[in-house]
């Protein structure tokens, strides 16, 4: 197995920056461009803020962010043990949101910035979102 790291944070908005910087620093081991790193940071922010706002509904909880490198791929998994979702597929729809004042674009952005996204969620158990991205440069070399 390649390099990996895991960050566990309290479910607090304060910790968004921490999650973003840690994931981006880990990602920097691959040859990502500066803008790919920015995309990654947006994806992490959205996934972690979903865990804080929706998963734990701003209550106390822990969020686990696992990072792994495997064959020039970055694999990031964000897990919460919050309220979960009955139908995670639906959450991917653009502008789908269960919170009035929000825009429902978080998952849409995650989807467009990452190569592959999988959600696994169960009501009252929690949510796991797995996101994969490789540097564009590598993808070009392979093709």
């Amino acid at each position, binding site marked *: 197995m390649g390099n990996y790291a895991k960050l566990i944070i309290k479910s607090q908005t304060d910790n968004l920056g921490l999650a973003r910087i840690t994931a981006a620093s880990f990602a*920097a081991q691959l040859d990502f461009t500066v803008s790919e790193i920015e995309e990654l940071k*947006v994806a992490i922010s959205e996934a972690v803020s979903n865990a804080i706002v929706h998963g734990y509904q701003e209550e106390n909880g822990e969020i686990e962010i696992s990072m792994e490198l495997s064959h020039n791929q970055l694999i990031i998994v964000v897990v919460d043990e919050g309220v979960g979702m009955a139908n995670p597929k639906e959450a991917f729809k653009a502008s789908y949101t269960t919170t009035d004042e929000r825009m429902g674009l978080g998952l849409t*952005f995650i989807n467009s910035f990452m190569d592959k996204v999988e959600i696994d969620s169960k009501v009252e158990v929690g949510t796991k979102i797995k996101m994969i991205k490789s540097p564009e440069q590598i993808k070009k070399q392979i093709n």
Partner: protein
Amino acid sequence: IGEIKRHLRDNNPIRVSRSLRDTAYKALQMKEEIESKNSEEVNLTEVAKEIGIPREEIIHALDAIQDPISLFEPIYN
């Protein structure tokens, strides 16, 4: 003056210190320079090598000079 100082302190946490700004500025300048030569997007590792600053430090610096992403209106541009 006390109030201005407090305002500056409250709005300029450690994250946007002078040294972070300098690092971010150097990184962005080098990025532009390499990209104008190669007309291709440069990766962070190259920028880090050119300016002799570790990648993680550049990430921290670039993150610090951005406006914090709001939970309700994330930056989408």
